[in-house]
């Protein structure tokens, strides 16, 4: 009988909580790479905090903050090429931004604008997925197409621990392994699906091990260690590009904020638990320590950088807010290639109503 307790599953881990690690390993990361990773994480954190504040002020709609998960998102997405495909859920604003999504676009989304799902041309980012796990299959199909066409992109699918319970997730892994397609399944195990802890979600010791059941490779990585995530992702991407099949990555992390702005996390987890993660495991903190040891980042730089990001946020918000408010009549254009005659009639009715409303 096979028993999961016989499996040896080690977590990839390069940088400890004080910014220490094996000299040689750390040495393989250039100053440039470290600074880029840090700046993106810091930028993401600032943006997340601003969005949260704006939601509280009623300037944007429901928002799912990602603070605490920056290393998992930034470390993984910066290991990609710009034309690789991304299949994000609502939690992956940081990954989307670092893959090239303009901040104004994020504002369109969180302000509920009709253009919110319209990825700018040239960017291979799928619209943010709300249905848990559904995007795992799309990523698999997209990677399948890449393989059939003999191209070299990879598709990266982001999802949470909860998503691994959906049937779609299992079908996606199975298809991906059967057809050996270049897809990376990147699971951010932040320990909760809204209020449900991971222990109630699965009886598996790890999510990474689920890969074995489908005949693909799986790996568990410290998701708050950006270097470990970056390196693991680089390896997975290379394998996938070389036609060696899909990979499931489980990044162990923690969401420091509420599930969304409508959630009250005190109902299901303790303050101490959150504090512990904040104090000892903040992904920004440990990289910052390393930067300081190398003397490549100062408080002055940090201040200037944060101020610059804050400016960017303000500008992006203003730009998004200055875009013409959408009208209901617009949405009829996106139902079919050509609207049916009856649908066209409905659109005309809406246009007529708008004129009446505006007193024209």
């Amino acid at each position, binding site marked *: 009988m096979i028993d999961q307790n016989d499996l040896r599953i080690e977590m990839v881990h390069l940088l400890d909580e004080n910014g220490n690690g094996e000299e040689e390993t750390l040495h393989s990361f250039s100053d440039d790479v470290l600074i880029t990773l840090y700046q993106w994480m810091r930028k993401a954190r600032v943006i997340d905090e601003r969005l949260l504040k704006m939601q509280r002020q009623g300037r944007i*709609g*429901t928002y799912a903050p990602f603070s605490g998960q920056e290393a998992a998102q930034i470390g993984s997405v910066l290991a990609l090429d710009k034309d690789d495909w991304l299949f994000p859920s609502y939690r992956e604003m940081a990954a989307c931004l670092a893959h090239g999504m303009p901040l104004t676009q994020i504002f369109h989304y969180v302000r*509920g604008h009709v253009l919110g799902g319209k990825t700018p041309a040239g960017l291979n980012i799928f619209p943010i997925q*709300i*249905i848990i796990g559904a995007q795992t299959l799309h990523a698999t199909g997209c990677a399948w197409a890449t393989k059939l066409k003999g191209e070299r992109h990879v598709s990266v699918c982001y999802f949470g621990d909860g998503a691994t319970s959906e*049937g779609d997730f299992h079908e996606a892994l199975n298809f991906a392994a059967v057809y050996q397609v270049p897809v990376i399944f990147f699971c951010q195990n932040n320990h909760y699906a809204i*209020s449900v802890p991971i222990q109630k979600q699965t009886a598996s010791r790890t999510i990474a091990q689920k890969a074995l059941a489908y005949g693909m490779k799986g790996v568990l990585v410290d998701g708050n260690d950006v270097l470990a995530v970056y390196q693991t992702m680089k390896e997975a991407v290379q394998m996938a590009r070389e036609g060696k099949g899909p990979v499931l990555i489980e990044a162990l992390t923690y969401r420091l904020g509420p599930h969304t702005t409508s959630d009250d996390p005190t109902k299901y987890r303790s303050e101490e638990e959150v504090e512990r993660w904040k104090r000892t495991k903040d992904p920004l903190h440990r990289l910052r320590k390393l930067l300081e040891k190398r003397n490549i980042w100062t408080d002055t730089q940090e201040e200037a950088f944060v101020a610059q990001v804050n400016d960017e946020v303000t500008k992006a918000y203003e730009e998004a807010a200055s875009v013409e*408010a959408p*009208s209901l009549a617009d949405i009829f254009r996106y139902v079919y290639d050509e609207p049916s005659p009856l649908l066209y009639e409905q659109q005309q009715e809406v246009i007529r109503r708008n004129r009446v409303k505006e007193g024209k």
Partner: protein
Amino acid sequence: MAEMTMIQAIHDAMRQEMERDERVIVLGEDVGKNGGVFRATDGLFEQFGEARVFDTPLAESGIVGTSIGLAVNGFRPVAEIQFLGFVYQAMDQLAAQAARLRFRSAGRFTCPLVVRSPYGGGVRTPELHSDALEGLFAHSLGLKIVMPSNAYDAKGLLISAIRDEDPVLFLEPMKLYRTFRMEVPEEPYEIPLGKARIVKEGEDVTVISWGASVPLVAKVAEEMKEKVDIEVIDLRSLQPLDWDTIYSSVSKTGRVIIVHEAVKTNGFGAEIAALISERALFSLSAPIVRITGYDTPYPVPSVEDDWLPNAARMIEGVQTLMRY
């Protein structure tokens, strides 16, 4: 009597049924410790424990499919689908499995289960949280479909649904969860499934509606009452449907408006219009009017209020009919 919101009434119904019948269990995503994202199951986990209230894995097909097995084997599951837009994940289990079990076993097996789910627009939710999908299930015969519009009805209908021998889809308009309070008896009571409620009697126009749209319809009827005498019918359940109430009203007024949030094409309003034209065509003095969501997917928050049926569209509909 106590003053209750709809969410409190729903909570009350579940708690009292669990107290009365130990076969009643509650399962779904976040329904336990968290008490549900709308707090519909608040405190049930503490009161009844983890052998009767289950925070399930995140899997709608799993929730409904296992509820069928639980129901066949002696329990009365009350399952929650967190928002109705996620029910697509459970489509096979609901429409092809739960709905057909009695039929395909020639009555040997039944699955007395309730699937509760919030639905309905106007609350600025993210995508796929607001869709009114009752029409999809009205097409799956074997399921009952119940859609309350107020606290009193919600309690009595949910109790009946839990006691019913067939699978019931119980759709709760989330916008109305906390918008108003009304008198609700403290003791348990049943409202039979398949009995409409006449919200307001009238002579000139019949407006037929259910669930989320009822308060809007009632308000407009009240506001127009000096000019037009509108009869408002709240169907309360689509399956079974209370044809008799529709028929007597239509025979009296000869003018019909059907209001629902779901898209127009193949919405349940089409079925009602067809029934009226089959059985009461010569009572009509004007064409039937439908005021519904437009034929698109449910849109983003910035335009949803214009997409939903609203007072302006309803008044226009009434005026059109009164010209006949």
